[in-house]
């Protein structure tokens, strides 16, 4: 199947637009101007991404090479269905998160807001860069920029806890990428002479089974942002960050960049053929399944809401890996689709957690008794978000999980079906106490008096938007579903 390519500088612009806003953000004299810059950049970025959507849906790809750095390898960009899906998710959620950030940061009077917005812009640039990378080198470049740009965000509070979390964050993320992913990339380059993402991988015929397995594992654990156990413990630690950061970065950008990178490498570099031939995909599935189950079990025991969400994220990320590693058509569609669906669900949950903190200063689930009566909008949105994550209709999460379930059946590995069902049950189990505490606790247990009200409008509007989007995606999943099936067609060659 020949893929028609279009030469356009748009992907580069989409990456750069938020970087270009940084001087504006830094030099702004007031909060309003600074935020105007942020929104302008976010809007232009979304427009740029959306303007490329029709071309991609036509089955074409957009290519642009910025500069050639090694023989046959350059800093180059390519927009295809998979990247488009991810970029669409990231750039649309950036706008919502910017809204939310404004509300959150203002209502808590956070310090160093300029730095916050500047690094936020860098992070989102890097995320789009990852989505639009044409080869592993470019992907790695933006991956590292993202790691570094999120460090000041994670450690925003600049206190002791932030410091130790920041250390842990960098240790896992940089240690993984420099210690494992980078050598794996170089070995790949050495054996194959290219780093471009090809539809069927580039490793076929260049490696034996042992090396392929080694490289797969190095990539899987090296891209530690995906949080496969045991490389997961940075994620709960990073929850010290302000909630909007957790929301966008740790439910959408950072962790999804990890998942996206692994998917890209598995399909574009290692290749489905190699994975299937040497039965590496079985091993990956097994690792992902363990992570799913264990993370869900740990989530049950967490009392801090954001930590519980973090462990939930770790489990959900492995769905993506599991789905793709199943190598069946539906499984892969489900896995890729889950990038989008989970993002909308999980970001709602984080927004809610932040809204609760904004309004009441509470972080622990056990202290949220009766909060649903005081903050009905927030907690309804929370309900929708968690239903989406659990995979319950009528929420977007159901669609991806449905495909995943189909995928396990298609591939004939029913054990993973059991894993999926078990984990859905566990998901329900760790979200249930939150609603129970919020809505159904008996009157004498209610901890809140009447004066507690909803969070400021800036905080509530975004979470309403994302919650409604989650529902909307159940009825109208076409843009993402089409992109996902297009991506799968390219990968599977159907």
């Amino acid at each position, binding site marked *: 199947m020949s893929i028609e390519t279009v030469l356009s500088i748009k992907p580069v612009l989409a990456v750069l637009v938020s970087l270009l806003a940084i001087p504006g953000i830094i030099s702004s004299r007031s909060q309003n101007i600074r935020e105007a810059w942020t929104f302008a950049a976010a809007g232009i970025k979304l427009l740029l991404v959306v303007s490329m959507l029709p071309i991609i849906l036509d089955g074409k790809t957009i290519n642009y090479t910025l500069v050639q750095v*090694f023989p046959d390898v350059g800093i180059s960009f390519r927009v295809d269905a998979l990247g488009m899906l991810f970029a669409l998710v990231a750039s649309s959620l950036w706008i919502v998160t910017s809204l939310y950030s404004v509300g959150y940061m203002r209502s808590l009077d956070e310090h160093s807001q300029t730095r916050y917005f500047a690094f936020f812009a860098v992070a989102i640039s890097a995320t789009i860069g990852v989505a639009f990378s044409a080869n592993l080198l470019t992907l790695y470049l933006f991956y590292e920029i993202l790691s570094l740009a999120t460090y000041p965000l994670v450690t925003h509070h600049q206190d002791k806890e932030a410091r130790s979390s920041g*250390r842990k964050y*960098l240790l896992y993320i940089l240690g993984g990428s*420099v210690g494992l992913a980078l050598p794996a990339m170089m070995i790949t380059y*050495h054996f194959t002479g290219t780093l471009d993402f090809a539809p069927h991988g580039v490793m076929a015929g260049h490696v034996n089974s042992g090396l392929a397995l080694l490289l797969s594992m190095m990539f899987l654990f090296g891209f530690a942002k995906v949080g496969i156990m045991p490389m997961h413990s940075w994620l709960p630690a990073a929850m010290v960050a302000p909630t909007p950061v957790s929301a966008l970065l740790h439910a959408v950008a950072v962790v999804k960049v990890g998942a996206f990178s692994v998917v890209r490498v598995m399909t574009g570099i290692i290749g489905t053929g190699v994975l299937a031939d040497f039965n590496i995909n079985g091993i990956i599935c097994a690792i992902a399944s363990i992570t799913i189950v264990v993370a869900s079990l740990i989530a049950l025991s967490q009392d801090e809401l954001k930590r519980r969400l973090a462990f939930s994220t770790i489990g959900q990320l492995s769905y993506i890996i599991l789905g793709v590693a199943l190598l069946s058509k539906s499984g892969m569609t489900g896995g890729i689709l889950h990038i989008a669906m989970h993002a909308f669900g999980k970001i709602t949950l984080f927004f809610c957690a932040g809204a609760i903190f904004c309004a009441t200063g509470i972080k622990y689930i056990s202290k949220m008794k009766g909060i649903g009566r005081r903050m009905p909008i927030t907690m309804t949105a929370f309900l929708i978000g968690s239903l989406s994550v659990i995979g319950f209709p009528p929420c977007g999460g159901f669609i991806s999980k449905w495909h995943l379930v189909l995928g396990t059946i298609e591939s004939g590995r029913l054990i993973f079906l059991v894993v999926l069902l078990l984990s859905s049950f566990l998901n329900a189990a760790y979200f249930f106490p939150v609603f129970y505490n919020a809505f159904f606790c008996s009157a004498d247990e209610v901890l809140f008096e009447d004066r507690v009200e909803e969070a400021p409008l800036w905080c509530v509007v975004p979470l309403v938007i994302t919650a409604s989007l989650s529902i909307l995606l159940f009825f109208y999943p076409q843009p993402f579903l089409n992109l996902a099936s297009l991506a799968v067609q390219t990968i599977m060659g159907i």
Partner: protein
Amino acid sequence: MTFFDGDSSLISNLPAIVVTLPLFASLIAGFLGWKNRKAPYPIAAVALFLTFISSVVLMIQVMSTGVAIEYRMAGWAAPVGIVYVIDHLSALVILLITSIAFVNFIANKSNIDTVFRNKAGAFNSLYLLFTAGLLGMTATGDAFNLYVLMEIASLSGYALIGLGSNRAPLSTLNYLFLGTIGATFYLLGVGYIYIATGSLNMADIASIMPKILDSSMILFAFIICMVGLLIKMAIFPLHGWLPNAYSESANVAAGLIAPLTTKVTIYIMIRICLTLFTPQYTFDYLNTSDLMVWLAIGTIIFGSLSALAQKDYKRMLTYIIIAEVGYMVGGFFLGNRIGVSGAILHIVNDAAMTLALFMAAGIFMWKTGEESQESLKGMFAKMPFTMAGFTVAALSVVGVPPTCGFFSKWYLISGGIAAGQYFFVAALIFSSLVNAILFFRIFEIAHFEPFKDHHHHSSNHSNKGEEASAHDTHEQTIKEAPLGMLIPFMAVSILLVVLGLYSGQIVNNIINFAIPSSIL
């Protein structure tokens, strides 16, 4: 009359001009220094700038013609007289030297004014002589001429770093002892080459080499030359002189000498191995790779671990320099094209990175007056632009794309993989991780700890009235370095990224031609 076609004759004399221009300027600066204390600085600055321009022209000339320029000193042809040979490799290193000397000179004006106030003439002269010495070392095609120029660079270097802190003279004296041993060993090696071949011209010797491959004189000449150069480039365990000498010196001297001396010595080693002893002898006949790569591994690991133990910022940098020497020596002795390209590319990149880090050190010194890492508290809030530049330089040392450090490391690592030297690869990765720890330790201090006389930024959410204007007060407390320091520094930091992005072009268009085709 040749007077009138001055243009073409000027271009054809560039190899001599590029070296003698700083020499003349140093004479004039030394002369005028007795009359007027302020005169030498602008003269030196202009001379360095003109030298830089000539080196750019030279580079363009070499790249456009694609052949090495041979310049006959005093009009005598190769083996009889001394010739300068400007090929891609030397043109690249000459460009590096002139640009670093110029940028460092411009950026450190205030440092020069304070430290060398009474001796402006002598200082500027020596600065120029040091530059001339390095340029000559790079350009020359004569093994003995190299020694003379090496000594000029060394002697002026001793003088420049001898005038630093109270302990500087002692560490400089130790540097002088080891430097002299190194140079004398090199001289002895040249003597052995001379009795084996009867020639001093590198190309001439190379043409004789195939006939005398198994001569023990040549073997010993090789060993002695290498030992001499290894001492001069401070490879482990011959590194003892470097940390003290560099960290005790004045900023302007450290900023010139630290980026250049070891790098140019490595260039000399590459030049000697490739042009004089021929790759056939160095890599095939002697098979030095294993030994030297292990030496390099030792250096990398030792340098990284020692850097980890340092509290003082500049001392930490000196150990990083030692580790980087290991990168380049190891990369070169991998003996394959990728590794050698990586080593040469890393000469350029590492010089630029080291320059940036020492310029940052100069700015920190200017700001705090101290050298310990603790003095960097709160710097991110205080000097955001400086710290941004510093971050880029640090990331480059760590090897994070798209900074240049990543790309040369990439070549080195792929060279290591291609040569099957997996321990070298492991050492490089280890050192990257250690560098990451080193610099993030500094980032943490600069990010988390409040600035000493300013406790505003500890997160005090309590007094909300004040916090509303927190942003604005924050803006006001920013106090950057003077523009004279900041602009060159920012330029170098940006250059680090540009070098990284264009490393493919540098390798394809320059370094590829610099490596003999016999190296695969």
